[in-house]
């Protein structure tokens, strides 16, 4: 699988659109260094992910990426607030408890801070997932199918929330989706179907 050169300036918002099987998840995993590209390079903030060791990539991803998943998973044994403490622990930072509570409040789930993730509704879990992606103030927010399970109204709300929180942080927002509803919302968008059907495009 090969991809064309994709360029995204800092603080921009980019939409990667593609049908399932179009390689968009692969691209997302390559972008954040979970998959190693066999050729080419992935440059983020001037650093090439491809030449890093795996441990460096783990640390780099943890530090600079916040990832929002389609279905929000959590460490089920921990409370929502404790889940937010994990990135700081893994990165060796001190956890900003007030900041975390404030973030949850901003996302409207402050009262759920001490609940187990499984006791939250789907919508609340989605918000908690966004909170976890943002808690360590990443420079890039990657959203993998953030809206595919949502109705029109919720889609608008979640996307607005993502955009708003990303711009509050000054983070680059990259949304990977097959959801056509988002198509016209972004000026910067790349349709992956074309690429895979035409490998020469790379």
């Amino acid at each position: 699988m090969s991809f064309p050169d994709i360029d995204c300036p800092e603080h921009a918002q980019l939409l990667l659109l593609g049908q399932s099987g179009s390689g968009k998840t692969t691209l997302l995993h390559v972008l954040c260094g979970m998959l190693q590209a066999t050729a080419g390079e992935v440059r983020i903030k001037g650093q090439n992910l491809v030449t890093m060791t795996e441990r460096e990539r783990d640390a780099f991803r943890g530090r600079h990426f916040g990832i929002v998943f389609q279905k929000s998973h959590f460490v089920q044994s921990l409370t929502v607030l404790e889940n937010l403490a994990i990135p700081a622990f893994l990165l060796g930072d001190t956890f900003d408890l007030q900041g975390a509570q404030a973030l949850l409040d901003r996302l409207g789930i402050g009262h759920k801070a001490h609940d187990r993730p499984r006791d939250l509704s789907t919508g609340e879990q989605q918000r908690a997932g966004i909170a976890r992606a943002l808690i360590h103030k990443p420079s890039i927010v990657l959203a993998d199918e953030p809206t595919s399970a949502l109705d029109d109204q919720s889609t608008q709300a979640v996307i607005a929330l993502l955009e708003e929180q990303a711009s509050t942080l000054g983070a680059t927002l990259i949304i990977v989706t097959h959801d056509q509803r988002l198509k016209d919302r972004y000026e910067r968008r790349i349709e992956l179907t074309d690429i895979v059907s035409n490998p020469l495009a790379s």
Partner: protein
Amino acid sequence: MSWLYIAWRNLGLKKLQTALSLILLAFGVGLVSLLMLTEKQLSDTFDRNIQDIDLVLGAKGSPLQLILANVYHVDAPTGNIRLADAEKVIRHPYIDEGIPLAYGDNYRGFRIVGSTSAYTDHYDAVWESGRDIEAPFEVVVGARVAESTGLKLGDGFFSSHGLQDETDVHTDKTFTVVGILESSGTVLDQLLLCNIETIWGVHEKPDEVTAYEDREITAVLLKKRNPLAVLTIPNTIRETNMQVALPAIEINRLTQNFGIGMRTLHAIALLIMLISFASIFISVYDNLLARKYELALMRTMGGSRAGLFFLLILEGGILSAGGSLIGIALSRMGIFILSQLIEDKFRYNWSSMGILPDEWLLVGMAIFVGLVASAIPGRSAMKLDTSRTLTEAL
């Protein structure tokens, strides 16, 4: 937040599975440790009481019974021997020292033993109060006896005939307590000591005096001067009603006999431990399978492969350390209950509850095996393909 905290909470999420692993390991370790303690207590008690008694001289009968009756005071004596015959043996050139013992009476189930000061010297007895025996019917009381009967210095009491029951009381002769011994962990704790004349005196009518040749004692504890004594003495007493027995050999035989039972229990305990390790393995592995996505998630947040390995190892470590410590505590409870039950029967005080070096080894081994059992799922966690796991989970 730490790996330890996450491991702890993960175990807490599966309470039943965790409890099962803990209970199994606790029982396995508890049983092994209980056996260790029992063996240690038994052999300590045996050794302390044998000290350097090489031979026991007494009436013919079971040699084991002779030892149990006269060294440990737990069985009935094999009979009496004539003092004159015994003295010949004591004066034998191969014999260094002989401590004569005579008994036949009890006070509230505790034996009254007539001997000489050599007996208390042999066990390095220390007086808690009072003095040594100077005259007939003066009694020095062992620590457990004093504690149990409440006898104090200057108290008088009557003895009962026989070694246990209290029906046939000799009301004509009064014993007087002149000394109380400190607890020594030896048979002295369970005895009332007097001189041999006292024992003879209890059973004589006031107006008749038994001729010297007819006086009898129960046994003599012998220390040899020459190793050949073990071979020679049996020959010299062949014609009498006496025998000599070697405490070390008889006790060895005894422990070997119930050693088979002990070994069976050991095997069962090890089997339980083995099952518990399987349970720990299943528990940690099950957690791994159920939480694959969580582990991948932690990788996306900056967690390393080594970190995930460490997390699962910690879960196994908490289970095996927790289980074995509970097991050690259980064995303490077990030995406490056992000692309550057995004290009435054997009058031995099993009080030392310190952790044996072997038990530390047991706990160390249990934790190590627990870690190994969790290292296998730990390795799988380490090799987890983050990208694929996240894709499949959708």
